[in-house]
């Protein structure tokens, strides 16, 4: 129950505080969301598999998010906007794989 409460509180906090994001950083926000989603589903899967480890999970989340942002940044600096797509695809694939595994555990 606690994780779901955390999600709901987070959404409410975001809606209440309306943190302004400059248009130039919207892409970073998007990739950060993907990374966060990826980590969350990864954590869910790990806990279903009973291999969940706090340290791995938390470091994974921050490391993935920062690396994703870094890749987007490097891509922007080098004029390779497509690096952003690489991150999106990588996270997307992992997301769906984790979802599939979670589905098999639940149903």
């Amino acid at each position: 129950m606690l994780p779901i409460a955390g999600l709901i509180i987070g959404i409410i906090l975001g809606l209440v505080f309306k943190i302004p994001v400059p248009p130039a950083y919207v892409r970073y926000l998007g990739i950060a969301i993907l990374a966060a989603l990826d980590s969350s589903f990864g954590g869910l899967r790990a806990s279903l598999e009973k291999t969940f480890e706090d340290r791995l999970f938390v470091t994974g989340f921050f490391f993935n998010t920062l690396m994703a942002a870094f890749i987007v940044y490097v891509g922007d600096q080098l004029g390779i906007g497509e690096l952003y797509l690489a991150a999106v695809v990588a996270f997307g694939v992992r997301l769906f794989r984790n979802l599939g595994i979670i589905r098999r555990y639940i149903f």
Partner: protein
Amino acid sequence: MKVPKFSLPKGHLSLAIILLILGVLLSTSFNTHRNLSRTTTESRKKGLIDVVNELETERDDLRKRLISLNKELSQYEKKAADEEGVLASYTEELDSLKLDAGLSAVTGPGVQVTMADSPQIPIGKDPNNYIIHDYDLRVVVNALWAGGAEAITINNQRLISTSSIRCAGNTILVNYIRLASPYEIKAIGSPDRLVKALEQNNEVKSLLKGYAKAFALDIDINEASNLKLPGYKGSIGIKYARVDEGD
């Protein structure tokens, strides 16, 4: 047999914290996108177009009111002139001043110059060369004034002492009215002198012989025996200029 249950025995807290961050990110992104789509250039452009259209209808309404009020005024003037003989001379003077100022509709002989954009712009060429510009109109109008024109209209907009001819985007503003190609310039005056003035003006010459030929601009000069020119319909609104009493 142990069936894995949908429960999170370990890491409740860390998951909760991460999901809290995810939640903040999600709602922030949601907000940002809603704001962005609300202020894109397209929607702002649409808003501005609406404002322009609204103001233009308002202006047209006001102009209509002005015309009707002017009509009313002239009716009163006429009435006054009929009622009192003393005023008759003033009214006459007023009429002649109105004629001088370009406020009354006039008829007479003159010339008519029609200027139109090139019917087609070749691909890859600078489209600016193929259209009539404000300065093209000014060249012709100046030559006509120089040739002794007594009244000039462009697309039925009478030129008066405060009129300007200027470019605004892809249209031309005359008396703050947007005009578009083809431009019809009518000038009352001696047809011979006006045509001669146009033919002898160097700028008009280069316009006719040079640009018009090179870029297929459609420019026609015709003498006319009976032109009808409307008077100036807008307001003049002189705010700063005062009559110099010492003069």
